[in-house]
């Protein structure tokens, strides 16, 4: 626990040194909000769009968190941390929670911009949504590390930036999957992000006790648990 906390604080401090990087990670969904949002709201609402852009943000920003770990492996920092008695889980969790906090900061930025455009969501729904974002970010960052440490490091960037495109589209980030033809709707049910996103939309709409929310939270928790399990294994073995 203590080690996780120490590493978490260290990771947050490192992000604070890279404020421009944190900001830049949120630019893509902000552009969608600005240049696509006004079209979207002719058929939908800001409350539907912003949760979609939060999932997009998670995938395109936190999903690429593995970059950092590739860099730390190359500079030997990872190996230096691995010879300490700190548990492998805490080595992973401290960093991953740092990434989740970065995602929350980026999400707040996006939500604030959404408000400026006219999105209105209850405070409790926002707070619950942010909690869900922490869980989602934890899973995404952990899996991103596992992939980055397993894959050829030169392939990581092109493969991951391509892989997130179908993941974003299948989650229903831009248009709800209820509008999709049957086969596409069925396919998107295979994506965990669809469930998390639908839960986020419910929360932003002020509906808390729905089956959609329960499913979304359960999927997010399971996703994070699997991510941490796989991540810890890879961290223990391949972080050399």
């Amino acid at each position: 626990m203590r080690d996780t906390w120490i590493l978490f604080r260290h990771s947050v401090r490192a992000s604070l040194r890279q404020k421009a990087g944190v900001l830049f990670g949120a630019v893509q969904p902000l552009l969608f909000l600005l240049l696509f949002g006004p079209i979207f709201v002719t058929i939908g609402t800001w409350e539907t769009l912003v949760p979609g852009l939060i999932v997009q943000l998670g995938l395109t920003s936190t999903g690429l968190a593995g970059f950092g770990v590739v860099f730390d492996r190359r500079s030997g920092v990872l190996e230096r941390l691995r010879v300490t008695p700190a548990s492998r889980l805490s080595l992973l969790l401290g960093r991953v929670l740092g990434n989740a906090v970065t995602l929350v900061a980026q999400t707040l930025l996006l939500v604030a911009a959404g408000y400026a455009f006219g999105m209105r969501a209850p405070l409790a729904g926002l707070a619950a949504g942010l909690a869900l974002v922490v869980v989602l970010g934890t899973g995404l960052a952990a899996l991103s590390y596992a992939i980055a440490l397993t894959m050829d490091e030169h392939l990581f960037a092109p493969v991951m930036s391509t892989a997130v495109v179908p993941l974003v589209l299948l989650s229903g980030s831009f248009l709800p999957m209820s509008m999709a033809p049957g086969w596409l709707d069925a396919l998107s049910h295979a994506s965990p992000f669809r469930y998390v996103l639908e839960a986020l939309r419910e929360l932003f709409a002020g509906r808390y006790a729905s089956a959609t929310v329960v499913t979304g939270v359960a999927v997010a928790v399971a996703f994070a648990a699997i991510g941490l399990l796989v991540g810890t294994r890879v961290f223990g073995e391949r972080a050399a």
Partner: protein
Amino acid sequence: MINTIGLTKTFDGGATAVADLTMSVEPGEIVGFLGPNGAGKTTAMRMLTTLLGPTSGTAVVAGHDLLADPREVRRRVGYVSQTGGVDPAAPLREELLLQAMLYGLSRAEAAAGTAESLALLGLTGLEDRPGGALSGGQRRRFDIAFALAHRPVLLFLDEPTTGLDPRSRAALWDHVRTLRAERGVTVFLTTHYLDEADALCDRLLIMDHGRVVAEGAPAALKTGGRTLDEVFLDVTGRPPAEEAGV
């Protein structure tokens, strides 16, 4: 301080990097691991520092069983890898404190210990720079400072002076000697430089193809008026200069 019996590492591809390594290192010794590239020196060191699980064999390192008690081993040993561990972007002081605190030290203890290590290594005053602003020799000494964060009784150095100029190398040897003299630290190092092995080490192990092919004090190895280079050539079949890239 180190006792290994039949330590072996075979990688997934079937290549055996270390074969049946049986050796011991006494407390307070400075022992050097020599051998051509690919001889298994780094693999052996990574096994002894718990970073790599052996395929077979056992070892007791710093009083604890490597396989049964890896955390207790980690608490007592320091390790400097070939790449080192300096983050070019992060302030060194913060990184040093992090390292020490991961060994369970409080912030105050970590700060005191760090200051002491920096003084010992002649680095005081440099810790407020980012890692990227250091010279090669300074960076290598910071790598050692990281490994000393928890006052280990045993220090592993993987090619500590590769890439350094002669003056920085000699300075680093002095620091290693000081560490032993002042803290009684046992040092186990790998090197490509035979002059380094000769000048610094009490005892040498020459490895080839994953096996120890010669062992003894530098003076004892140089039988029949041979130089250490000639001994190396005789036991490994390869001249050492090639390996050092000189």
